[in-house]
């Protein structure tokens, strides 16, 4: 038995097995060790898979030795290995952080259940990314969604229950739409294997059930990825979830949904159907612009830092879908690169805010006044993350925006390039709100007694902050993978 051959299966199985093990041991510290070890193993597996797809190779794995298209196929290419890297990497960093952070947020006797749920959520997200089977996508989507509802409901604020319920309703509608779309595709093609489906769709492309499937999938997945105006669930979910969960979900859940959208558009339906025969690019362009401006504007007026950055997430997702709407290699590269850059940036921000919440007791801006005096490292990290959201050169966010603007100019759309810059100014405004509160106000007497966040929270957060800076300067890994993936999806350079 050679381990290397079975990496695609192990990628999902290791976190999956760690979940019941965490329940069986029933002890917080043992569960923590099991799940963290599993997430690191998953990260190592993802790195190995990413290296394995370096030359544009596709790794195919037949579950149960039932050959595709009959059996379930796990399929790793440049794009999915890149997303696997994001998801497992974020889990590997968030889990050590969660050990300290959930101490205050979740009753101790529930900690082992938290880790089990986290492992299941990770399993689901990795499974969605790695599988090459349409129905399997839905199954893993449900695994990740159900566990994330539980994780959000664990927030110590009672409003977390409401937020989780809201997400459950919206998420279930989204999942139902997705399964209807998959059902229609199965009806028209008789297969569930994505690659096989793509081949057979060529004969029935453009028929009404296929168009209906495309519509159902687009709306369903857009709900899950919080495309404006389907983002209503996101703000509450991110605000009231435990800090570690906010960070992990903000960094991965919406990104994986965008991956699914890209997968269906480019690998199943094909760009000629999606982008040439339908007005989908125009719709997506408008919604992306609405997200970039409206959500950023809403973010400026928030009183809670977590909620502020939740709305900023909606705006940033707008950039990703904007890149999609260009239907060009550069645009797609910008989208895929921003999956990574935004995951790292938002992950860092939510981890740092979690540290502030642990020390101060809340994330409302009024409570955080003078934070920089008391918690200089946390505040400085949030500022650096904010700079990356704005897209200042030297940060990861700049790279994504650079490619986005290049893609707009390639299409000859000057006004879009201006719009991208203008919406970045809105990001300046909401990041400035934090800077003003934290750096230019005196700390309250109560806050002055608090100390910097513990190392258990600072170290993972600062690893992500430095990743943000590192990938703002060194782009061969991120842009290289994204450009390869984009070329592969568009069928160029094979």
């Amino acid at each position: 038995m050679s381990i290397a051959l079975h990496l695609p299966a192990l990628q999902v199985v290791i976190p999956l097995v760690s979940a019941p093990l965490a329940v069986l041991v029933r002890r917080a510290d043992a569960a923590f060790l099991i799940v963290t070890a599993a997430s690191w193993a998953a990260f190592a597996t993802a790195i190995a898979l990413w290296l394995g797809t370096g030359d544009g190779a596709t790794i195919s794995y037949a579950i149960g030795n039932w050959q595709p298209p009959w059996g379930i196929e796990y399929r790793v290419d440049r794009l999915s290995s890149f997303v696997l890297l994001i998801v497992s990497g974020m889990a590997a960093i968030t889990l050590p952080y969660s050990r300290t952070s959930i101490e205050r947020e979740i009753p101790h006797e529930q900690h082992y259940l938290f880790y089990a749920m986290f492992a299941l959520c990770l399993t689901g997200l990795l499974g969605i990314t790695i599988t090459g089977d349409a129905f399997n996508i839905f199954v893993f989507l449900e695994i990740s969604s159900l566990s994330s509802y539980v994780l959000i409901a664990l927030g110590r604020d009672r409003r977390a229950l409401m937020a989780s319920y809201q997400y459950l309703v919206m998420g279930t509608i989204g999942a139902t739409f997705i399964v209807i779309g998959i059902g229609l595709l199965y009806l028209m093609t008789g297969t569930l294997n994505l690659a096989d489906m793509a081949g057979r769709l060529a004969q029935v492309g453009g028929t009404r059930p296929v168009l209906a499937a495309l519509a159902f999938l687009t709306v369903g997945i857009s709900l899950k990825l919080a495309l404006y105006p389907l983002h209503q669930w996101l703000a509450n979910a991110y605000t009231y979830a435990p800090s570690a969960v906010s960070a992990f979900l903000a960094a991965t859940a919406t990104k994986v949904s965008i991956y699914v959208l890209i997968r269906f558009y480019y690998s199943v339906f094909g760009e000629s159907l999606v982008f040439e025969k339908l007005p989908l690019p125009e719709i997506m362009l408008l919604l992306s612009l609405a997200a970039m401006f409206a959500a950023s504007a809403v973010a400026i007026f928030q009183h809670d830092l977590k909620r502020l950055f939740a709305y900023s997430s909606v705006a940033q997702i707008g950039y990703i879908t904007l890149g999609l709407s260009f239907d060009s290699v550069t645009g797609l590269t910008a989208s895929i690169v921003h999956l990574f850059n935004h995951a790292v940036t938002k992950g860092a921000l939510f981890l740092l805010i979690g540290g502030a919440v642990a020390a101060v007791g809340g994330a409302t801006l009024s409570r955080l006044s003078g934070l920089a005096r008391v918690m200089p490292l946390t505040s400085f990290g949030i500022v650096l993350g904010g700079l990356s959201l704005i897209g200042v050169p030297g940060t990861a966010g700049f790279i994504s925006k650079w490619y986005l603007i290049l893609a707009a100019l390639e299409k000859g759309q000057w006004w879009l390039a201006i719009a991208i810059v203008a919406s970045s100014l809105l990001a300046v405004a909401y990041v400035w709100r934090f800077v003003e509160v934290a750096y230019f106000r005196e700390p309250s007497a109560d806050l002055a007694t608090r100390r910097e966040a513990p190392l258990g929270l600072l170290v993972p957060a600062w690893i992500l902050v430095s990743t943000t800076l590192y990938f703002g300067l060194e782009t061969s890994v991120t842009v290289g993978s994204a450009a390869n993936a984009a070329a592969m999806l568009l069928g160029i350079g094979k």
Partner: protein
Amino acid sequence: MKHDLILRVAAKLLIPFILLFALYVQFHGDFGPGGGFQAGVIIAAAVIFYALIYGVEAARKAMPDRLVETMLASGVLIYAGVGLMGLVMGGNYLDYFVLDRDPVLGQHRGIFWVEVGVAVTVSGVMLKVFYMFVSRGRDPE
């Protein structure tokens, strides 16, 4: 219903047969309708029936919370373990063909243990849900 003699006696008579029927559904699942999920539900139904007649405390004594929680986790482990056995025996994950020298027997063996895992988890989850609902409003939380 502690004093309802007829119900108590009828329940005591019926429960073994319900459990036996669960086993039939479990093992006949290879050849006809049935399988681990249905069998797991029937096992849980037997325990819930017992709880309805004899009280939740008695049911909790027979099937303690800890056992239920162990069941719902270990079923998944059994399932995943079958998959990993496939790896160990030199096949792919969840590959039943390699579980026996005869591939058909291997398929039988694989699905048998997978269904055992499903039954264990499903009955565990059913009972956990039941216990959580009946204990609502009793705990201070």
